[in-house]
C-alpha cells in the first residue's frame, strides 16, 4: 500500500549513489559501498536490474519536466532548480531573523514539531491501544468515538489547538498529536485482539500476572502490528506538519513553502517539495528498518 509506494523509489535512491560512483569514479572506490552483501563474482546484472528501473523512473519525471518547461514561462527548468538547490544547500544553517533562516533550520524545526507531537501520540496511543484491545468493555466504549474523530481533517483540529494553547507552536504540535494517534491506537488494539489463543492459553495455565501477560506475551506478539501503526502515524504526521505550518507560520518547512509562494519563488517551492518527499522517505525507511529488526519468525 503506502509503504509499497514509498519503498521502490527508496530502493532506487539507495542504490543510486554507488551506481553513479561506479560509472564515474575509479573502480577502487566503487566496491566499498556496494560489494558488502554479494560474494566475489559480482552480480552486475542483478545490480543493473535493481538500479535501472528507478533511474528510468526519475529520468522520465525530470525529462517530462524539462520538456514542459523548454519554452520558458513562470515554471523553472530542472537545471535552474538544481542550480538553485545547490546554492540553497551550500549554507543551510544561516539565520537572519525569525522569517529568514536556512533550509536546514526549517527542516529541523518541522522535524522537532513532528517528533514532539508524534512522541506524545505514541506515549498516549500505544498504551491506550493495549487497554482497548485487552478489555472489550473499553473497546465498545471508545470505538464509536474513534470512528467519529478519526476521519476529521487534520486542519480542523488546528483552531481548537489555537484556542486552547493560545500559541501557534503548541497548536501545530497538538494537530500532529491528534492526527497521528489513531493509527497507533487502532493497530495496537487489533494486534492485541489477534494474539494467538495458544499463547493466551499458556498464560492462563501458568496463571501469569496481568503485568507478565503484557510484557512477556502481549507486547512481543503485538509489536509488529504496533510498528505498522507507528509507521502510518509518522507518515501522517509529516503530511500534516507542512499544512499546519502554512497556517501557523514560524520557522518550518511548511511555512517556508508558503513564504516562498508569497515571494513568488517557484524554484524554492519545487525544492521544498523534493525536500519534504525525501525527508518523508527517510522517516519511512528508518521505521521499516526498525520494524524488520523486531519481527520474529512465526512457528
Amino acid at each position, binding site marked *: 500500500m503506502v509503504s509499497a509506494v514509498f519503498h521502490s523509489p527508496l530502493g532506487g535512491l539507495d542504490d543510486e549513489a554507488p551506481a553513479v560512483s561506479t560509472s564515474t569514479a575509479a573502480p577502487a572506490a566503487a566496491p566499498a559501498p556496494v560489494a558488502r552483501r554479494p560474494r566475489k563474482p559480482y552480480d552486475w546484472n542483478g545490480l543493473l536490474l535493481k538500479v535501472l528501473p528507478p533511474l528510468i523512473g526519475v529520468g522520465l519525471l525530470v525529462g517530462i519536466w524539462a520538456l514542459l518547461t523548454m519554452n520558458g514561462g513562470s515554471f523553472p527548468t530542472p537545471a535552474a532548480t538544481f542550480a538553485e538547490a545547490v546554492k540553497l544547500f551550500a549554507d543551510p544553517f544561516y539565520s537572519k531573523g525569525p522569517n529568514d533562516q536556512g533550509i536546514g533550520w526549517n527542516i529541523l524545526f518541522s522535524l522537532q514539531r513532528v517528533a514532539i507531537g508524534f512522541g506524545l501520540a505514541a506515549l498516549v496511543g500505544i498504551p491506550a491501544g493495549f487497554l482497548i484491545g485487552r478489555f472489550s468493555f473499553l473497546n465498545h466504549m471508545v470505538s464509536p468515538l474513534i470512528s467519529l474523530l478519526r476521519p476529521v481533517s487534520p486542519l480542523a483540529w488546528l483552531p481548537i489547538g489555537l484556542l486552547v494553547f493560545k500559541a501557534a507552536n503548541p497548536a501545530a504540535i497538538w494537530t500532529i498529536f491528534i492526527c497521528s494517534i489513531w493509527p497507533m491506537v487502532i493497530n495496537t488494539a487489533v494486534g492485541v485482539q489477534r494474539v494467538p489463543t495458544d499463547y493466551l492459553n499458556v498464560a492462563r*495455565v501458568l496463571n501469569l500476572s496481568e503485568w507478565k501477560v503484557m510484557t512477556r506475551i502481549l507486547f512481543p506478539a503485538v509489536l509488529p502490528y504496533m510498528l505498522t501503526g507507528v509507521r502510518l502515524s509518522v507518515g501522517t504526521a509529516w503530511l500534516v506538519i507542512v499544512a499546519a505550518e502554512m497556517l501557523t507560520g514560524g520557522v518550518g518547512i511548511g511555512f517556508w513553502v508558503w513564504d516562498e509562494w508569497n515571494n513568488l519563488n517557484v524554484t524554492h517551492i519545487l525544492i521544498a517539495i523534493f525536500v519534504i518527499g525525501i525527508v518523508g522517505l527517510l522517516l519511512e525507511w528508518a521505521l521499516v528498518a526498525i520494524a524488520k529488526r523486531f519481527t520474529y519468525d512465526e512457528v
Partner: protein
Amino acid sequence: MASNSSFIEVHQAEMVFSTKKGRFHALRDINLSVAKGEFVTLIGHSGCGKSTLLNLIAGLTLPTGGSLICDSREIAAPGPERAVVFQNHSLLPWLTCYENVHLAVERVFGTSESKAQLKERSLAALGLVNMAHAAAKRPHEISGGMKQRVGIARALAMEPKVLLMDEPFGALDALTRAHLQDELLKIVARTHSTVVMVTHDVDEAVLLSDRIVMMTNGPAATIGEILSIELPRPRNRVELAEDSGYVHYRKEVLDFLYTRHGVVASAA
C-alpha cells in the same frame, strides 16, 4: 475406585458448544475419577471429544453441565497445579527455549526460591528432555519434535499436581517418541505425578497407563469402557512386547476401537 482417594473427580460432565452452525453436543454423561499418582490415558477416534475432556480438566473451557473437582476444589479456571502440554507445543517464538521454561518456573517457584535455584530448575527440566544444548535457541531454530520436548520440559518444570498432556508425542518420530515415553515413565515413577494424557496410539496407552479410558465416537461422546492395566512397574517396552498380559490389553483396546466402535467411514 473409592471416592475418598480420588484426586480428580468428574461428575456427569456435559459439554455443548454453541457454534455458528448451531449447537454441537460434544460430551455427555462423563463420570471419571482419577486417583492421586494414577496415570490415565484417554483414547478414542478423532473428534470423540477426548481433547475437550482434557480442556475441561485443565479449566481452559468450562462444562455446560456437571461438575469437575481437582484436589477437593471445583475446577473453575486453569492454574499451574494442572500443567498442560499442548498438542502444538505453544512455545512463545520471541523467547529462547530456556526463557520459555523459565517463565513457568519463575511463576511457580519465583517467590520461594533464589534466582540460582530457578535457573537450575529450568536447565534441569531442559536436560530431562535432552534439550539442554538448545537452551539459547529460539523455537523457530529447532525441529518440531524438539519444540514439543521443550513444551514438555516447561510443564514438568512446574512440578504440577496433575500433568495434562494432549497428544504430546503425536508429532514426534517413533524413536524420539519411545525415548520420551520412557523418560516420562521414569519421571512419573519418581515424582508420583498424576497424569491424564490424550492419545490415539494404542501401544503408548498400554505401556504408560494404569487405566485406559476408551471413548465412544462423537457427537455426544461418552466413556465407553475403562480398562485397568495391571502390568507391574517399572515397565520395559522390549520385555513387554512378548508379555501375554500386554498383548491381551492391547487386543482389548484394539477390539474396542475397531470392532465395537469402528470409525464411521465418513469421519476423518
